[in-house]
């Protein structure tokens, strides 16, 4: 990260500093197309389930893609909810790639039939990311619901048969699956996919299950060692840069890209610093405003703040600060920790100490909640949402208990 050139024409300073100051356009971004979802994963970072009636229209989505093309955003990671439940989903994918915006979309696999798999295998510039959170149905379905493991594996088999290589198998690491990393790699290898493992954040419904599902300190250490040994073979979305404090940095930029090189566009056009920070405090603007997405990216006060010098607070005196950069903003925010203090999973244990000192009543909750357990309410009300009751998680209970799977 500190490669320095002696060429007189080269700028001084590290690349990482340039990125922390922000760029004129994102490198890539997450675009949640819909809050509708046929599943109800217990840790859903976007608290998805019900479609928001104010979703961007097809025309509005195309206007966003036109902007991304003008800004030379290289690709979008389309998710949701389950993006494929939008009737215009495939049309929008085509529109993006025709307008020089690469697409990777995240899906639970429920709409990848044989024909669609063949279409994907033949499509240039479209990548697929299948979500799976257990290497066995037993572990996976506890989090993602009965049958979701089979759905994902079936989709992967269809993609394999159709000749699609190097699609992504994406796993959120939890206390329950942290011992299955080799098994996940084997599954990815079996289907010709690339394994991607990412960090569980206490975001969305994740806040309700974070205490019991986030990896233990010992599991974190093992995870770091495992990732380091795998190098570029396993992707991480740079989501474990807080673990770089253990020693050698993991591959990736090793910095928080939120509002600097990446951001989120949500289904109603709201722009947030990142998909793990869907909360008023991280809302930068809306694409429907006169300046569009470009106006929000370039002029929002929130992003200007994030691109300014950040106070590391007590962390900046730690000898590891340069490696961990103080960790993840969203992880701190949604566990009620101050942003200028340690990450809740600080590898030195400073986060655990901080968690003990916090006021549980002051833990922020997002008002943006499309979960199906939610009592229905009129759109646009500013009333705070009733907290979603965490599912009573005995081994047998399906997170889908109590309602009919949709669509």
């Amino acid at each position: 990260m500190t490669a320095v050139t002696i060429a007189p024409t080269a700028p001084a300073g590290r690349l990482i500093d340039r990125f922390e100051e922000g760029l004129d356009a994102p490198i890539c971004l997450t675009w949640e197309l819909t809050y509708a979802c046929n599943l109800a994963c217990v840790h859903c970072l976007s608290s998805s389930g019900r479609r928001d009636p104010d979703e961007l229209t097809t025309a509005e989505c195309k206007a966003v893609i036109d902007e991304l093309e003008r800004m030379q955003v290289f690709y979008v990671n389309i998710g949701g909810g389950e993006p494929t439940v939008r009737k215009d989903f495939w049309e929008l994918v085509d529109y993006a790639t025709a307008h020089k915006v690469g697409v990777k979309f995240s899906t639970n696999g429920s709409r990848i039939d044989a024909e669609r798999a063949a279409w994907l295998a033949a499509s240039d510039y479209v990548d697929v990311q299948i979500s799976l959170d257990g290497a066995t149905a037993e572990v996976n379905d506890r989090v993602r619901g009965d049958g979701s493991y089979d759905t994902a594996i079936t989709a992967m088999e269809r993609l394999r048969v159709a000749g699609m290589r190097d699609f992504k198998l994406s796993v959120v690491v939890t206390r329950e699956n942290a011992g299955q990393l080799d098994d996940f790699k084997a599954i990815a290898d079996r289907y010709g996919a690339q394994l991607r493992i990412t960090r569980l954040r206490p975001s969305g419904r994740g806040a309700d299950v974070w205490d019991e599902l986030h990896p233990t300190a010992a599991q974190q250490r093992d995870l770091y060692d495992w990732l380091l040994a795998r190098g570029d073979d396993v992707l991480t979305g740079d989501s474990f840069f807080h673990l770089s404090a253990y020693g050698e940095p993991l591959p990736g930029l090793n910095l928080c890209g939120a509002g600097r090189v990446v951001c989120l566009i949500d289904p109603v056009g709201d722009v947030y610093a990142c998909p793990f920070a869907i909360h008023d405090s991280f809302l930068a603007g809306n694409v429907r405003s006169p300046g569009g997405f470009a106006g929000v990216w370039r002029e929002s006060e929130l992003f200007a703040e994030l691109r300014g010098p950040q106070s590391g607070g007590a962390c900046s005196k730690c000898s590891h600060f340069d490696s961990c950069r103080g960790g993840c903003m969203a992880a701190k925010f949604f566990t009620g920790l101050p942003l200028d203090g340690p990450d809740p999973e600080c590898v030195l244990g400073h986060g655990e100490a901080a968690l003990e000192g916090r006021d549980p009543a002051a833990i922020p909750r997002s008002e943006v909640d499309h979960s199906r357990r939610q009592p229905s309410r009129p759109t646009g009300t500013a009333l705070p949402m009733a907290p979603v009751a965490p599912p009573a998680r005995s081994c047998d209970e399906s997170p889908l208990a109590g309602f009919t799977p949709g669509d």
Partner: protein
Amino acid sequence: MDEIDLATAWRLNPQVSLRPESFGALAYHFGTRRLSFLKSPALLAVVERLADHPDAAAACRAAGVGEDELALYRRALATLAGSGMIVPREGTAA
């Protein structure tokens, strides 16, 4: 690839999106999905001139690269060629 022949003709791969930045440029290859950071504005200037000059050395000179820096830029161009960001122009020896 550690070296390229500066006496040959090159161009930006048509599958690459080159985006100028204050520090130089970002280059994204849509086929391989690789992302490269060009860490000097002069290197961006060289890459932008490759297609219009008979060889890479001429492109470097046109971008203001001094003789004493050529080795550095040869290495940079080699990296870009190795990842397919730049390709030999048709009708010329690779």
